[in-house]
């Protein structure tokens, strides 16, 4: 069924990136009758390729971009010299480099944004040091597409389970995952404090769904690929359905590095390296870049030419700016009996009582809390409670692993113009292309709110009866896996890169859709919103193409 397009053919749509957004975009455009080629820089893996191997996945960049072939540099502020990110530590801008993208290694937490996320600037006013802005769309406009994600991608959860839930037009298609001990304890502690915990919405099948089996509770979600196909990577959901139309080709190990333009200022195709590192060109009537919040701005900046000297679609100067990672702050609790949190999905209970920003606190911020183990054993063992991190007492701490949980607070990052993805002037990747330079320093309010929410996690663990509680670190972030805000959408071409339908303000047949489109960060868990945006954008892009408006 899979269509193969020849080198000389001009396809209707070329989609760069096969992840959370690219997968949706490919399926929707192919189903709408268009010919689609998807370029994916990483390989296509099969379920059997995924292993429960922490060393490979957490320390050796098994399925993510890595510092050997995809080096990056980092600095805190634009006036500083960026330093090459060292091997052994996570890259500043980390994503899964494979077909399915980061929807393959994500944890699958599928919170919808709330109504407030889309108009906080109007609600709260300006915030010094930040470029807080309203989205050009509302929650109500996005709601049908959130519902589409629930049903087309497959989200398990329980509708109507808490008073802070944003309005929804349909219940979840699957019941929530079985509760874990951490979920029971979070629920117990939260209810004692008058809060409203609810079953976690997850893009993980709690029962067989659309040809995929139910979760086997193996515990290797976060950072790993799902060999059971229960976690809803687009590798298993959207892309096979796109290919089944007979109009879509997913071309793996195809690394896009320059978008070509015509004298009329339209895009004509994309230059890429194939798996043999030969330069090839795929011509297209329109290009949709869904390469993630780091690679999308990088591709635009690498596409600079005489006509677009500052990078493609960059008349605003904002391509790559306003990078947001999502802050976090949480606490560990040790209980009397075993929880065995290493089993099953990360989170089974969530709290959204602290979702809204509250000016009375004196600083901006909002967040959600969930119950989880955190990473798998090897990472977990690296950081213990305050005190000596080795020796006899540390061994006792290690023994408490099955009785320990993390109450994790997931919080906002403000859009700060200096925080950015740019091209390093010196460092090159293994293909000779400019490496990414990450500039990032949290807005002070991001840290203050993460600490504030951490206090709430401590209270919840105490109320749940924890024998021992300690805080995880709240630190300035030096890496992220939520890559947001770098080609923000907006009505004003001077203050945004794309319009409300994801069309580049400067280039009529170029569209951008992924985490880069975000205007604000939400409260963590961005993939649900990335996919809702992709469903919405695909519908509009397809309609515009049919009306010959592209």
């Amino acid at each position, binding site marked *: 069924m899979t269509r193969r397009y020849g080198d000389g053919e001009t396809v209707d749509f070329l989609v760069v990136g096969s992840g959370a957004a690219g997968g949706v975009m490919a399926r929707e455009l192919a189903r709408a009758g268009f010919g689609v080629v998807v370029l994916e820089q990483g390989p296509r893996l099969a379920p059997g390729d995924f292993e429960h191997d922490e*060393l490979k996945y957490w320390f050796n960049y098994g399925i993510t971009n890595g510092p050997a072939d995809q080096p990056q540099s980092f600095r805190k502020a634009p006036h500083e010299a960026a330093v090459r990110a060292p*091997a052994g530590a996570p890259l500043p801008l980390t994503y899964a480099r494979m077909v399915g993208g980061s929807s393959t290694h994500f944890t699958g937490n599928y919170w919808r944004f709330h109504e407030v996320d889309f108009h906080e600037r109007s609600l709260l006013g300006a915030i010094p040091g930040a470029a807080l802005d309203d989205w050009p769309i509302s929650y109500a406009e996005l709601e049908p597409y959130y519902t589409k994600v629930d049903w087309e991608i497959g989200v398990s959860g329980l509708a109507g389970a808490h008073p802070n839930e944003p309005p929804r037009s349909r219940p979840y298609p699957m019941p929530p995952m079985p509760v874990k001990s951490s979920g*029971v304890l979070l629920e117990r502690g939260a209810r004692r404090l008058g809060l409203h915990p609810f*079953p976690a919405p997850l893009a993980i099948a709690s029962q067989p769904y659309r040809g995929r089996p139910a979760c086997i509770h193996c515990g290797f979600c976060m950072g790993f690929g799902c060999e059971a196909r229960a976690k809803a990577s687009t590798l298993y959901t959207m892309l096979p359905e796109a290919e089944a139309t007979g109009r879509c080709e997913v071309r793996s190990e195809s690394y896009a590095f320059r978008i070509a333009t015509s004298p009329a200022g339209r895009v004509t195709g994309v230059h890429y390296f194939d798996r043999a590192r030969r330069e090839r060109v795929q011509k297209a009537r329109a290009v949709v870049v869904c390469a993630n919040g780091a690679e999308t701005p990088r591709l635009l900046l690498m596409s600079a030419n005489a006509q677009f000297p500052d990078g493609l679609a960059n008349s605003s100067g904002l391509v790559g700016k306003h990078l947001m990672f999502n802050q976090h702050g949480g606490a560990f609790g040790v209980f009397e009996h075993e929880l*065995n949190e290493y089993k*099953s999905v990360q989170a089974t209970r969530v709290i959204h009582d602290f979702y809204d920003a509250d000016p009375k606190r004196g600083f901006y911020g909002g967040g959600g809390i969930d119950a989880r183990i955190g990473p798998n054993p090897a990472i977990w063992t690296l950081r213990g409670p305050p005190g000596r991190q*080795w020796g006899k007492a540390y061994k006792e701490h290690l023994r408490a692993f099955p009785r320990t949980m993390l109450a994790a607070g997931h919080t906002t990052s403000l859009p700060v113009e200096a925080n950015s993805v740019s091209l390093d002037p010196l460092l090159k990747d293994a293909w000779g292309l400019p490496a990414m330079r990450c500039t990032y320093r949290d807005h002070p309010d991001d840290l203050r709110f993460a600490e504030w929410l951490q206090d709430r996690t401590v209270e919840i663990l105490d109320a749940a009866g924890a024998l021992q509680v300690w805080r995880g670190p709240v630190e300035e972030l030096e890496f992220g896996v939520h890559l947001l805000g770098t080609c923000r959408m907006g009505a004003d071409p001077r203050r945004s890169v794309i319009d409300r339908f994801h069309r580049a303000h400067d280039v009529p047949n170029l569209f951008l859709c992924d985490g880069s489109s975000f205007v604000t960060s939400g409260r963590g868990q961005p993939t649900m919103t990335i996919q809702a945006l992709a469903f919405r954008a695909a519908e509009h892009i397809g309609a515009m193409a049919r009306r010959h408006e592209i």
Partner: protein
Amino acid sequence: AAHAHAAAAATGPGATALEFLTPEEARELDAIVAQIVPTDETPGAREAGAVYFVDRSLRTWAAGAAGPFRDGLVEFRAGFGAAHAGADFAAADAATQIAHLESVEGTPFFGLVRTLTLVGMFVLPSYGGNRDGIGWRLIGFDDTHGYAPPFGYYDRDYPGFAVPDQGP
């Protein structure tokens, strides 16, 4: 006796061959890891084979740290020798070893040894530092491919999620 046996195992024939460390370096390193996760009524990092994991890591995925590691070890040994009449760290008694490690626990060398020791103990046994699943047994990690609820004590008798009354 256990110490002598482990030191022999760390360097003697029949053990995994060393790829980076000299036998003497391995003996010293083995004494350090044995204080990071000590042996008590259950095995520790020494029995788990942490030395082999560190050794192999410095030739493979952590090769970039091999130079600083070796420099750090030389400095560590010189520092211990200077304070203890030229003695080897491995030959000292436990109290002396612990006291010295407390004095150097902030160094990059100790941090690297600690990280590699812990990582090796809790990743797949095939990497050499979690021999016979010693690390996993220590933390109660049941290496099964999948699980079924109940997962722990607190979800065993969970009555089901009660949807709160959200008022009119």
